[in-house]
């Protein structure tokens, strides 16, 4: 189970003074939204079929997210304390190294990260491990050494596929209702194993040259207090014959 301690998109995001990094002081970090669903799915599979849920996180400060997964019910955590920046290839490579020696039936990851939005780490790892895989999964059913999945396609269509185990799936949000963390869960998480695995950072494949605000045309903003804004809004709707 791969998880990311990701920056929230809700807060104001400031660009660093070098123009090629993010000012982390303004950022709030949390478990990546897609990964919440993936952890829940992993826990449900374990509850139905037995086994162990191991969460793996890459990042120097990813402990809170790993602890959260343990509090949700994961059995143990592996932390890879390196900063892979904006290079998902390095993240996947680090995970590959970190889980060497681990036996697994299924690897789950979220479809994408909420901050960098690449949708890469899961499938990169599948390729590095030569695993069968499926992405954007909206249903997972374990059947006798196989897994039957639904995948989300464009325009509301879905596709049903069957994969052998072991394999790797990336989980789409909305697949389940992730559980809340209980006080008991938090207490229990304190006694669970969170192991650090050191790996060496690979050669970068993507180097950040510049981070900037997108050059977009802006909407005409309606200003003033609420009554004034609503009056303008009504005028716009009237002029378009909508009321």
């Amino acid at each position: 189970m791969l998880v990311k301690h990701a920056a929230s998109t809700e807060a104001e995001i400031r660009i660093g003074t070098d123009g090629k990094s993010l000012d982390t002081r303004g950022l709030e970090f949390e478990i990546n939204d897609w990964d919440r669903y993936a952890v829940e799915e992993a826990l449900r599979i374990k509850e139905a079929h037995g086994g162990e849920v191991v969460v793996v996180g890459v990042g120097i400060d990813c402990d809170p997210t790993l602890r959260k997964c343990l509090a949700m019910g994961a059995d143990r955590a592996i932390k890879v304390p390196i900063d892979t920046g904006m290079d998902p290839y390095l993240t996947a490579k680090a995970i590959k190294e970190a889980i060497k020696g681990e036996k697994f039936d299924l690897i789950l990851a979220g479809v994408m990260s909420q901050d960098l939005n690449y949708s890469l780490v899961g499938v990169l790892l599948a390729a590095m491990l030569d695993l069968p895989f499926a992405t954007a999964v909206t249903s997972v059913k374990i059947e006798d050494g196989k897994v039957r999945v639904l995948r989300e396609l464009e325009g509301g269509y879905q596709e049903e596929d069957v994969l052998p185990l072991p394999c790797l799936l990336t989980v789409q949000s909305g697949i389940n209702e992730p559980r809340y963390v209980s006080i008991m869960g938090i207490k229990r998480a304190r006694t669970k194993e969170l192991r650090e695995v050191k790996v060496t950072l690979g050669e970068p494949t993507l180097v950040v040259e510049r981070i900037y605000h997108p050059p977009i045309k802006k909407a005409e903003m309606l200003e003033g207090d609420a009554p004034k804004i609503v009056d303008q809004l009504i005028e716009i709707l009237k002029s378009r014959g909508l009321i």
Partner: protein
Amino acid sequence: MRVFAIAEHRFGELNSISFELLHLANSIKGSGTSEAVIIGRDVAGFARELVRHADKVWVISDESLENYNPDLYIDVLLQLFRIETPDIVLIGHTSQGCELAPYLAVKLGGSVATDVVGVNVSNDAVTVSRYIFQGKLMVDLKITKLPCVLTIRQGVFKEGPEVNGEVINTDIKPSRSPARSFVKFIKPEVGEVDISQADVIVAVGRGIGDASNIKLAEELAQILGGVVAGSRPVIDSGWLPKDRQVGISGKTVKPKLYLALGISGAFQHVIGMKDSDLIIAVNKDPEAPIFGVAHYGIASDLFEIVPLLIKKLKEIRG
């Protein structure tokens, strides 16, 4: 540069992203070539369409390739690329492309970047531009390892020259049976309301906060003679049924009025509503990307604006 574009089709139709990839390929190839790859069964017709915009079209045809299967597609692509070596491989940022690109990158010993909206090639150095934080910021990335595989956002490279190259029929066949087996397609659920037919849509996003607040949007929609729709987080939370989802994995809508309440404006949503006649967005975050697509924006709390708007509309209606 030798630039390859992997064409995409489903249900017997070529996805227009295939041409957009070729337009991009033609603009960055320099003294090199733009080369399409079409994989499937009976795809000669597609090859004839593609070749109008490509220097070469490589056709890989087999019965087993009728429906997309990542294991077989990757297998045949690697056979082709072993002989015809790419510098850049372009793929649509689609449900297929997001599977093929990373896997190919690893097997080609190259690099990969996704959801790319700009590519710059100078002196054999490749730089790509993409959004991060769901549209709030952009980043330029230098690719340090070729070949690079890029997934390209739909709708960006719409125009390009005619090239009229040649079609090459390969005898490449899958060398293995797939690990993953395709079972069937499942059609979209049909609900009681077809939002794609509505003149007025009141759409809610994460900012609506809670299921109990949906009724606020419903009241407004009723007064305006419209329907309520939602973005992905609202559907994921079960606050609205799946058939009310606007966006790439839901429906594409073009109403006369699209009122976006508490929607941040991720690309996956915007692609489904950007062609609406009039878009008005309410979001308390003045940096929300939705204001990049809206005609009018209100950077306020929707819970201040919407109740007041409902009250005024009721007064007008008497």
